[in-house]
């Protein structure tokens, strides 16, 4: 049997561009995902600022109608598919092998391929900006027949289709890696019910990706065939169905919102116990709730289609109400974790607490929208916009920032400035509230979404101005974070393995971890092996962990 040896990488080597292009290390790939998705986030955020600037007062001041349609299409596409989904994948990439005690993913090269497909796909979507007719303008939901010829003719939409097909494949390949790694690479002693809650959320997220993304990919291929190859899948005048696109899109689209929610629920489940100094309350129920949310996410898709008149209101209404219950279970378990704890308000915990308030309102308004008669009044208005920004920004983005502050020391060996972090958090909490709470009223009083302009006599100008002011605060509030990152990376790496006194296995190795992750792993007797080891060490060497 041939013995194959490999030169160990010199520890002090600085990574070059070639290092990054050729890496198969899940930690580097995770950082690539996080960086790329954050850059997409900044660009998508700029688009949002232009949208809000346009809507501040009536009249078209900055863009024309076509330009506005491109704005909200690209903003939505970038935020959902080029930011939120890959950011979750980036966190998962970095953390899953560490949290289960493995040296890497099961398929490291496939992992790298996932990242490159995502990056190239995203760049192809954005390349619409380089064309004469501009980027896609069909809404991130791309409803047919509007997205077919002869109604939407620009090449920007074709590039959007192709780019998203690539990013979809990237997500599917990533999901394969996550599921395989979680199932087969757990360190001895780590049963499934000792996995960190974050790992469970990634497992369910991956199952959702595996079973929902093909619907999107299929729909995109069908749309491309309709547009460029004479097919008629979505043309009723030729025997196709315009409703079919919506079924396909939302069969993907609703699991997609749980794909970008569940990992961030998992982040909250990691942060709150650490800063409450207690174990997560109701671990098994959290796991069960995660599985139920994932399973039920395939039963609710047509609550986005109540106004089509083509779907069963009662079926999808009861399904939407049912899925609220496990989400509530998670909420109460988070509060149960805080209850009786000893809280410290480090920046990650601030984001987690902000999440609790904001996701609460976003979630409740989602239940309201799940009632078809109410949806008849509120669908396609700013009420829906306020709802989904509540859960996606107040929920997922707040949790993501919490995650970044929490795991930044592990990833880089440096801690982000607490002062700048607090500036970031408070301006985002205020900015978010100002931007989006008025939008509930705007929507309820009839302001439609995807409108480039609104009448001056509708009485909406004041609220729109407030909302725009809030969005500027969000934009400004991002600056402390960027400054904090730059400053931190300039400092020497000085963080210990476990700066927060945390619970899961990634805190059992150095910050940042070595190439192969672990030189030794503490005994695994619960979902908090690092906590158990710390307690055992304090109790003294003669006491064995129970």
């Amino acid at each position: 049997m041939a013995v194959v040896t490999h030169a160990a990488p010199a520890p002090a080597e600085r990574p070059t561009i070639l290092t990054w292009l050729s890496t198969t290390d899940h930690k580097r790939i995770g950082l690539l995902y996080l960086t790329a998705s954050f850059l997409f986030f900044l660009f998508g955020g700029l688009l949002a600022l232009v949208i809000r600037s346009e809507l501040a007062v009536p009249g078209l001041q900055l863009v024309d109608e076509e330009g506005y349609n491109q704005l909200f299409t690209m903003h939505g596409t970038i935020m959902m598919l080029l930011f939120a989904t890959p950011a979750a994948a980036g966190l998962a990439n970095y953390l899953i092998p560490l949290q289960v005690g493995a040296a890497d993913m099961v398929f490291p090269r496939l992992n790298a391929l996932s990242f490159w497909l995502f990056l190239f796909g995203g760049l192809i979507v954005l390349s619409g900006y380089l064309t004469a007719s501009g980027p896609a303008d069909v809404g991130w939901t791309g409803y047919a027949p509007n997205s077919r010829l002869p109604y939407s003719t620009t090449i920007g939409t074709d590039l959007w289709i192709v780019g998203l097909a690539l990013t979809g494949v990237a997500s599917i390949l990533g999901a394969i890696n996550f599921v395989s790694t979680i199932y087969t690479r757990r360190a001895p002693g780590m049963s499934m019910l000792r996995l960190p809650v974050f790992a469970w959320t990634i497992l369910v997220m991956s199952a959702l990706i595996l079973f929902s993304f093909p619907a999107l990919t299929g729909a995109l291929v069908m749309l491309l065939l309709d547009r460029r190859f004479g097919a008629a899948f979505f043309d009723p005048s030729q025997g196709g169905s315009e409703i079919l696109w919506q079924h396909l899109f939302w069969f993907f689209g609703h699991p997609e919102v749980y794909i970008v929610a569940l990992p961030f629920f998992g982040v909250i489940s990691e942060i709150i116990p650490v800063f409450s100094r207690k174990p997560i309350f109701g671990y098994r129920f959290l796991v069960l709730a995660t599985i139920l949310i994932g399973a039920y996410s395939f039963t609710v898709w047509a609550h986005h289609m109540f106004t089509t008149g083509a779907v069963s209101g009662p079926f999808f209404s009861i399904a939407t109400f049912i899925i609220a219950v496990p989400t509530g279970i998670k909420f109460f378990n988070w509060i149960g974790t805080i209850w009786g704890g000893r809280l410290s308000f480090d920046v990650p915990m601030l984001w987690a607490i902000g999440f609790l308030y904001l996701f609460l309102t976003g979630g409740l308004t989602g239940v309201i929208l799940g009632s078809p008669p109410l949806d008849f009044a509120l669908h396609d208005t700013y009420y829906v916009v306020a709802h989904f920004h509540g859960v996606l920004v107040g929920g997922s983005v707040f949790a993501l920032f919490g995650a970044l502050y929490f795991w930044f020391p592990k990833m880089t060996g440096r801690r982000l400035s607490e002062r700048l972090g607090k500036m970031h958090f408070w301006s985002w909490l205020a900015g978010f509230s100002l931007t989006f709470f008025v939008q509930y009223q705007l929507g309820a009083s009839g302001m439609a979404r995807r409108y480039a302009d609104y009448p001056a006599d509708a009485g909406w100008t004041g609220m729109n101005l407030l909302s725009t002011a809030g969005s500027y605060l969000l934009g400004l509030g991002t600056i402390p974070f960027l400054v904090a990152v730059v400053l931190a990376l300039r400092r020497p790496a000085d963080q210990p393995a476990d700066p927060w006194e945390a619970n899961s296995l990634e805190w059992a190795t150095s910050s940042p971890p070595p190439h192969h992750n672990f030189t030794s792993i503490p005994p695994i007797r619960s979902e908090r092996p690092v906590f158990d080891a710390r307690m055992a060490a304090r109790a003294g060497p003669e006491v064995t962990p129970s």
Partner: protein
Amino acid sequence: MSRRRPVQRAGRVMAAGAIGLLAAGCLPAGATAEGRDIGTLYLGVNIVAAAVGVFVAVLITFSVLRFRRRADGDALPAQTRGNLGLEIVWTVIPTVIVAGLFVATVAVLTRVDSTEATPGAELDVTAFRWGWTFEYPGEDVAVSGIGVPGPVVVVPVDEPVRMTLRSSDVIHSLMIPQFLFKRDVNPGHVNVIQFTVEEPGDYGGQCAEFCGIYHSQMPFTLRAVERAEYDAWLAEEREAVAVEPASERP
């Protein structure tokens, strides 16, 4: 100098937010029988949602303030892992609440979607990029308009009005905010809606499904008048040419 200050500030911010939330999201009073039904359901659902929201927000605020780490440092709190009784309670109660929501929802939905009553006026509505045509098939009358301000469609008040919705191109959606109502206008799947306006007046309508460049520029006005006035208007329209001249986009 302790951590008390920022946390108390947090409490006040949260309270303000909660109050702001309660005030937000007021629907106009529905001007149709169905709209009133929807408005009542909305009020009821919001009361329940607000109650749940305030309850949970107070729980969060209380626990965040009450269980702050004090100066006594590092002692671990009781490492409670869970409580089966609580899990049951906070599973069963939300289930009961949403079951109640569902029952109320289905009742209202059935009434809103019903097309059983004999209509006092029947219209064929065609949406297109970017305007509307309203035809009165039994009456040989049609009104049509492109862009702003769009056509004025006249219907009798206090009688069921039935509209059959078809698009000649992409998916649009007929929305009348003061009716608390919208329904998609599809090129394939035809929708039939029926409503009874209770107050005479002019009600603004708009397109509520993204349909291309001028999606925001295809409004219309629905004018509800007494039956006598409606009949007179129909007679006038029949005498004039069938289709109203298209109004210009500004």
